[in-house]
């Protein structure tokens, strides 16, 4: 009897710990939100030097070298959505004032929406995200005013809905091509299981598989530049797909993605 009471007590304690962790998590998120806009202003890439100590020669020399090829960058908030948000901002930026390309993307968006519905997703909620995605996209038809794009991506309502929809596209693409992508999974038994834990929930960080799936689904190549402590002279580029010639570049530092602009 005593042991049973103890166990019950422990379960209640577990729950209290869950709540404490959740509260701490919220506090950390607020701090990050105060420090960094969802998508930051255009800044010079070599300002990154300020983030590293003078002795940190690996990073410093790689940054100096990189800033000769990529002069400008935008930082994104480190909330786990940074890859999707960085990609979306830069992709939308390349579409500004190009109604033909915007229409092509709209067709693709509609295709994925109907694929999702065939996979059994709730059309009522999927349409909500799709509608906002298309609504914001259409605002870019006849403008090249970057302030509009900055506004769209720094309004958490529209910005997060765009991220949700890209996550749904990735989930849909992976489920419909699971024969190929299943080989990439380590801890999950099924693609559905992987997507519902690692793709669809917001704030879940992106890995290679997310990047490969998104670039293949949208047929938009991306260059990821890896900036880390690896013993090389230059930050290492990796194009997705391998043989592509991307216009969109993203800087990866362990755990985080920012937008960078090639000269």
């Amino acid at each position, binding site marked *: 009897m005593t042991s049973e009471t103890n166990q019950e007590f422990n379960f209640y304690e577990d*729950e209290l710990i869950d709540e404490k962790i959740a509260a701490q998590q919220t506090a950390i998120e607020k701090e990050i939100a105060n420090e960094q806009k969802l998508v930051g202003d255009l800044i010079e890439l070599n300002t990154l030097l300020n983030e590293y100590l003078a002795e940190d020669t690996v990073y410093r020399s790689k940054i100096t070298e990189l800033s000769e090829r990529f002069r400008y960058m935008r930082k994104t908030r480190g909330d786990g959505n940074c890859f999707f948000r960085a990609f979306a901002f830069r992709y939308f930026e390349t579409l500004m004032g190009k109604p033909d390309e915007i229409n092509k993307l709209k067709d693709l968006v509609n295709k994925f929406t109907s694929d999702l519905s065939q996979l059994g997703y709730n059309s009522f909620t999927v349409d909500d995200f799709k509608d906002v995605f298309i609504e914001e996209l259409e605002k870019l038809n006849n403008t090249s005013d970057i302030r509009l794009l900055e506004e769209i991506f720094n309004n958490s309502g529209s910005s997060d809905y765009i991220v*949700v929809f890209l996550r749904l596209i990735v989930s849909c693409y992976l489920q419909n091509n699971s024969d190929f992508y299943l080989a990439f999974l380590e801890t999950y038994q099924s693609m559905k299981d992987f997507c519902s834990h690692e793709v669809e*929930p917001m704030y879940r960080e992106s890995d290679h598989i997310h990047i490969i799936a998104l670039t293949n689904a949208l047929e938009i190549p991306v260059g990821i530049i890896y900036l880390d402590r690896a013993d090389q002279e230059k930050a290492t580029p990796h194009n997705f797909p391998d043989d592509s010639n991307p216009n969109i570049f993203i800087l990866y530092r362990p755990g985080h993605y920012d937008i960078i602009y090639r000269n």
Partner: protein
Amino acid sequence: MTTTARRRLMRDFKRLQDDPPVGVSGAPTDNNIMLWNAVIFGPHDTPFEDGTFKLTLVFTEEYPNKPPTVRFVSKMFHPNVYADGGICLDILQNRWSPTYDVSAILTSIQSLLHDPNPNSPANNEAGQLFRENKREYEKRVQQIVQESWLDDSDEESDQNKADAPK
């Protein structure tokens, strides 16, 4: 100001009215769209049959990016429900998808009632009885079914005040 969370909750409510799922109901409280009351009717052919279980759903401005906090207000005896009514259900935690709406949340909780997950125990005693002594488990569930008819509304509104976001 209409935020995405509030707009989406209005739409969730409309869908719940236009296309009501069997055995669940829910609505925002009069003065606060972020706080909902809901009722789940115990599913047929389960020990929970005929129970009317009240719940509260507390949403934040991050909805639907983040799930609401859902609690049973009515007393519950179930392997995956904590003593304070909190629910241990993956879609309300690490498997949350922004495509779930209130209707999907309530129907998932309803199916959890007749299909407990023994791997995530929140009530050890209920979990143990469910595994080892079905007869006693059903007896204990039937007690809370009867209690669910007696819930008085004063208690419920006190609970709401306690849960409401500041």
